[in-house]
């Protein structure tokens, strides 16, 4: 079975983003970029499935600027077999819907048995691509996965839902999105980094798949989050309990 | 009348190696010489033998003749037809085969022909004088003496002279003076004893050393190591020296000595059958001249081979283990060192020094004669008695006594006292009478070595010193390693000029090192190059130019007195002298191109200035430039003072001293002569051929490169040289001052010194001593 793993090049999770003073967006000039952490977990899961014999080939795909090749090289270095870059010009914002459409076209070509992607990207935090892709493919979706087990022509996915876990069984081919506790991504070994350089990396463009990437949402303004407002005092435990419930914690 | 003037023509009978060599040296001194030998066995040219000898000498290396002109002074002939011509000669030297009967027959015929009072001397090394003159008349006996030269006669400075009981003092005196002044020999008065001094001790020494090596089971490498440098013996060591002299000569010397030495002479104890040596001679292993001797070079494996004393067979040379610390420079430590080293050293030194001590009064009157003979005849660094002083007075005697061996009389006389000492600035030796006597130099001989004992230099620094050599003349001595020239030398020159101007009359540039100066200190220069100190290098270059120009225009005469090598900067200082008094064996040349540089201290300018006044060259600026370009680009070195004149390093008016010991005195005399009404020279001006000239020179170089005679980088160096000699951008019409020429030199020098290929050449020369052909 072939597994398709979409990956995205985002700001490094260690870097504290700074909003530009003109409110046009976040300052990305010479900021350290890396693979979206949830996507690393997706690549790791694919490789473990391959190591267990449940999968035969892993194809990493990314929709992004030329520099996204570095992210795909990382995926190859972790153990992916092939990579496809759907290249857009630098700085272009491609919305989840457009990404989902491109991935659908790629999936039609690659016909993977399983698509594993990160539940959300830590830059736009949209958490939509996996679900949209499943819809466009008319295939089942297993979101926020904390466990994935392939059984014959189906996959059993344990999902993290508010307040606990839920398990569903999806008919393959299917789309799974990963959550934090699914696995602990491995470090790319030096020999694999060296081999990654020679693994195939095809470069395509959205036009190759006939997908129109013009954005539907226009960003009017980007602002700093409101500064921590002064705390409030609660008179008693009951008020506190109410507050906790409100936050969905209790 | 000194001998130099009294002997105006010489006859040499016997055109063997020694006879021909002696004749050549006489010719080198500019004295016509008649060389006679026997008739050839066949062939119709009756003078073939003598002629053949002269022809052979023109091709031998090292050359017996100092210049082609000298060869023309040798008239050849044979003893049958031309013996009567001996009458025209003022001195007759007999150098025929060592056969008493043949010699006596010749003398008899000579007696009839020669003029009374004409000296006759024999070069015999083995036959006693009385035997030679047996049967001759009284006049002949008065005119007869022994003049024992050493091989090769041009270069070996020792001559052992034996006067017979009846030899006339005047006749002997005239011959001694002639061989001293004209042939450059140091006369050592010798008694009529077998082997005279040098061979008597030398042969005993070699025999003892060989026997001890065999008896104590040393390899020849170990023997040469122990018996070589530490004892002041040339680094070839014992077995190396025998290879040099000729293995086949050894038995001859042994035979002649055993037949003439008095019974009981310790030499007889060394004589033993030498099957290995006989086998070597039989199979043609006679030494360096042949296929090798004790050492040989195996061309196939490109390795040095040594003969194993036990088996007599060749094996690869093994570098002996280093000598114990401290034994290399301290004889006392050497002879008392543990194991093989001490045992061998004592066996050799104990016997040889004892033997020499026994011979004082027997072969010569005093220790100085014996020391001089060994130093000049066998290239020992120290004579036997100097070695005894280094071993420690009384040590030799004490140990001989301790071993129950006879202690020579002179050692007993000396007791704890050294054989040499310095008293009130005078060098003294211990006589057989037990008293110290001054070491007397031959009349007119002046040595810096003696002056130094008398006092301190006027001024001195790390690389040079200034000495008062009397009569208002001072001598500038190079004292650095290999007399190399560096900033200190230039600084001292700077101090010297005002000082001489104020208190003295003239300056002589002179030193008694084995070489006058090999030029600039390449090591220091390379270090400056390696740390990119370009401004320092430029300063040193200009500093040298200015110092030499200061000498040239100093308000007093400057006389250069070179001996041995005078290369590069060493040659340039001579070119700036008002006059040069050169020792005959001076090897002068501008060799900078060999290390990828050009003469930077004024050599180019001076050479052009010399050659353009040379009448033999056609008019116009180009011929002189071409000649100088050829001399410098090929780093030509004159092989004698005479040839230096032919090449223009010496002026026609410059003087040549045949005897090294007289060089300082001659130079001083020349300087004083110039001092009267001295006027510094006028700065020359130059009209140079410019770009056209350069093109011609470049074409010539291309030609050499095409023939494979010049390497690619030679072209670059030659190009930089051509820039100077042709005036660079200046065209024909411009007049260049001397300062312009010096500037051109500096410009080309700096360009080359910055080039990595020049740096590689300098480095290669420093590391290997051989030029790099890149």
């Amino acid at each position, binding site marked *: 079975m072939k597994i398709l793993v979409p990956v995205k090049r985002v*700001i490094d999770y260690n870097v*504290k*983003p700074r*909003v530009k003073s003109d409110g046009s*967006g*976040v300052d990305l000039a010479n900021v350290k970029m890396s693979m979206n952490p949830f996507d690393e977990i997706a690549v790791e899961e694919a490789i473990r499935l391959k190591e267990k014999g449940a999968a035969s080939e892993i194809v990493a795909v990314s929709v992004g600027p030329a520099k996204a090749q570095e992210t795909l090289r990382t995926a190859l270095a972790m153990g992916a077999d092939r990579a496809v870059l759907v290249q857009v010009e630098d700085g272009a914002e491609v*919305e989840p*819907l457009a990404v989902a459409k491109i991935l659908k076209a790629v999936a039609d070509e690659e016909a993977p048995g399983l698509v594993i992607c990160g539940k959300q990207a830590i*830059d736009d*935090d*949209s*958490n*939509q*691509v996996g*679900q*949209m892709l*499943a*819809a466009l493919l008319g295939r*089942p*979706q297993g*979101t*926020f996965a904390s466990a994935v087990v392939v059984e014959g022509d189906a996959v*059993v996915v344990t999902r*993290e*839902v*508010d*307040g*606990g*876990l*839920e*398990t*569903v*069984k*999806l*008919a393959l081919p*299917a789309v799974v999105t990963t959550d934090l*506790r699914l696995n602990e991504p491995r470090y790319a070994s030096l020999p694999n980094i060296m081999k990654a350089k020679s693994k195939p990396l095809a470069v395509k463009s959205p036009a190759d798949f006939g997908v129109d990437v013009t954005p539907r*949402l*226009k*960003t009017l303004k*980007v*602002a*700093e*989050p*409101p500064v*921590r*407002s002064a*705390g*409030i*005092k*609660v008179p008693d*435990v*009951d008020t*506190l*309990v109410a507050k*906790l419930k*409100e*936050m*969905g914690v*209790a | 009348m000194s001998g130099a003037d009294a002997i105006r023509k010489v006859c040499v009978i016997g055109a063997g190696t020694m006879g021909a060599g002696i004749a050549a040296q006489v010719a080198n001194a500019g004295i016509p010489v008649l060389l006679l030998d026997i008739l050839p066995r066949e062939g119709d040219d009756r003078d073939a033998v003598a002629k053949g000898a002269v022809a052979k000498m023109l091709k031998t290396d090292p050359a017996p003749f100092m210049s082609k002109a000298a060869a023309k002074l040798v008239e050849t002939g044979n003893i049958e037809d031309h013996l009567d011509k001996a009458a025209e000669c003022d001195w007759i030297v007999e150098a025929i085969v060592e056969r008493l009967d043949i010699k006596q027959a010749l003398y008899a015929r000579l007696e009839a022909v020669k003029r009374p009072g004409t000296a006759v001397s024999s070069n015999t090394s083995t036959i006693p004088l009385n035997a030679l003159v047996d049967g001759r008349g009284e006049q002949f006996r008065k005119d007869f003496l022994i003049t024992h030269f050493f091989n090769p006669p041009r270069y070996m400075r020792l001559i052992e002279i034996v006067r017979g009981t009846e030899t006339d003092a005047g006749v002997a005196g005239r011959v001694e003076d002639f061989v001293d002044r004209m042939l450059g020999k140091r006369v050592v008065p010798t008694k009529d004893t077998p082997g005279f001094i040098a061979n008597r001790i030398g042969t005993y020494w070699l025999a003892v050393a060989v026997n001890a090596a065999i008896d104590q089971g040393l390899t020849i490498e170990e023997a040469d190591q122990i018996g070589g440098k530490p004892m002041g013996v040339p680094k070839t060591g014992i077995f190396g020296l025998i290879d040099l002299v000729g293995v086949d000569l050894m038995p001859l010397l042994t035979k002649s000595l055993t037949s003439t030495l008095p019974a009981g002479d310790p030499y007889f104890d060394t004589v033993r059958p030498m099957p290995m040596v006989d086998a070597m001679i039989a199979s043609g292993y006679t030494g360096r001249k042949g296929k090798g001797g004790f050492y040989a070079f195996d061309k196939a494996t490109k390795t040095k081979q040594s003969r194993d004393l036990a088996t007599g067979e060749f094996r690869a040379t093994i570098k002996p283990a280093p000598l114990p610390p401290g034994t290399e420079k301290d004889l006392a430590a050497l002879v008392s060192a543990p194991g093989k080293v001490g045992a061998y050293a004592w066996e050799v030194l104990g016997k040889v020094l004892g033997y020499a001590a026994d011979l004082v009064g027997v072969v010569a009157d005093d220790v100085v004669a014996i020391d001089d003979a060994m130093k000049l005849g066998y290239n020992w660094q120290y004579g036997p008695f100097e070695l005894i002083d280094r071993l420690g007075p009384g040590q030799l005697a004490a140990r001989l006594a301790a071993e129950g061996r006879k202690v020579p009389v002179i050692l007993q006389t000396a007791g704890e006292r050294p054989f040499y000492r310095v008293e009130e600035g005078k060098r003294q030796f211990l006589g057989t009478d037990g008293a110290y006597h001054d070491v007397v130099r031959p009349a007119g001989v002046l040595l810096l070595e003696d002056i130094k004992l008398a006092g301190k230099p006027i001024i001195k620094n790390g690389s040079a010193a200034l000495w008062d050599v009397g009569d208002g003349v001072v001598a500038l001595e190079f004292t650095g390693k290999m007399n190399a020239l560096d900033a200190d030398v230039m600084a001292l020159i700077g101090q010297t000029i005002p000082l001489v101007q104020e208190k003295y009359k003239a300056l002589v540039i002179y030193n008694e090192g084995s070489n006058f100066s090999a030029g600039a200190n390449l090591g220091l220069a390379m270090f400056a190059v390696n740390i990119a100190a370009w401004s320092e290098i430029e300063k040193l270059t200009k500093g040298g130019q200015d110092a030499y120009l200061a000498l040239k225009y100093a308000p007093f005469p400057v006389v250069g007195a070179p001996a041995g090598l005078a290369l590069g900067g060493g040659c340039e200082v001579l070119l700036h002298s008002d006059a040069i008094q050169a020792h005959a064996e001076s090897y002068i040349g501008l060799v900078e191109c060999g290390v990828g540089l050009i003469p930077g201290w004024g050599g180019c300018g001076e050479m052009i200035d010399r050659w353009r006044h040379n009448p033999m060259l056609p008019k116009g600026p180009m011929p002189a430039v071409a000649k100088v370009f050829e001399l410098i680009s090929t780093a030509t070195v004159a092989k004698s003072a005479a040839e230096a004149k032919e090449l223009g390093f010496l002026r026609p008016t410059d003087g040549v001293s045949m005897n090294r010991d007289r060089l300082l005195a001659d130079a001083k005399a020349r300087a004083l002569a110039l001092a009267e009404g001295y006027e510094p020279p006028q700065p020359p001006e130059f009209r140079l051929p410019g770009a056209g000239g350069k093109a011609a020179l470049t074409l010539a170089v291309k030609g050499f490169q095409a023939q494979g005679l010049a390497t690619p980088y030679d072209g670059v160096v030659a190009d930089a040289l051509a820039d100077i000699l042709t005036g660079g951008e200046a065209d024909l019409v411009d007049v260049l001052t001397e300062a312009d020429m010096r500037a051109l030199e500096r410009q080309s020098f700096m360009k080359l010194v910055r080039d990595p290929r020049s740096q590689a050449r300098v480095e290669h020369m420093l590391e290997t001593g051989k030029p790099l052909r890149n």
Partner: protein
Amino acid sequence: MNVLVWVEHDNASVKDATLAAVTAAGQLGEVTALVAGAGCDGAAAAAAQIAGVAKVLKADDAAYAHALAENVAPLIVALMADYDAFVAPATSHGKNVAPRVAALLDVMQVSEVLSIDGPKTFTRPTYAGNAIATVESSDAKLVLTVRGTAFAKAAATGGSAGIEAVSGTGDAGLSHFVGAEIAKSERPELGSAKVIVSGGRALKDAQTFQDVIFPLADKLGAGVGASRAAVDAGYVPNDYQVGQTGKIVAPEVYVAVGISGAIQHLAGMKDSKTIIAINKDEDAPIFQVADIGLVGDLFALVPELTGKL
């Protein structure tokens, strides 16, 4: 604008998050609540009473029992013919279903809406809340998920909407519900816990720390931390220490019990989303950074709080 709101329910009552969604939807236009499930009459009835809900659609079918997106999305898409906007709370179910609907409607969804500034203009958090973007949609229809804590809850009573039964395409047969496990997983690790309860020196000793702090943490499914003073005093092992010289944490909620709030401790937890402090000293530095402060004796307050959760 006609707005269809997705109701989260347990067949009997409506979850709080939906009340906030209703408030948000109300700002866009007339609100119709969709209750889908199996045996969800009770939930439909509850939905009908929510103030501001004009109409309730009920889709009662075994296929919708667990709100499987593969089955629910076609239902919603079909209904959306009559509506201009679909609003779902940003819960795990809302986030699971809404994007599938948006894709089928070829609409670019706006996630985690914090405020509605215009008919098609919304603000939403990006870069983990470090940058708030105001976006305007150019799509004909709207699909939104809204963050519960950003809107007031509509009153659960006071409404009396009519309930209309609707039906969809039923079970797509793609996904099959296997089971759920709502029980607590064991204590989450400090580094990745969503909620952390930390105790300070005031906890007197290890046993008291055990008795007071751990029960509260279990109730909240929270990780347990401690101040350096507590660790040095041996109340808990070293790796519990939160602070500059221990672990750096940034959970959703950080409850500091009996912790004064030394600068070194603040350095370790100042990035938490919400900080709650319980301390008897009202001037303790912890209160300067706490969002919610409760002054008093922790030995009384904490057991009471644990009891009431």
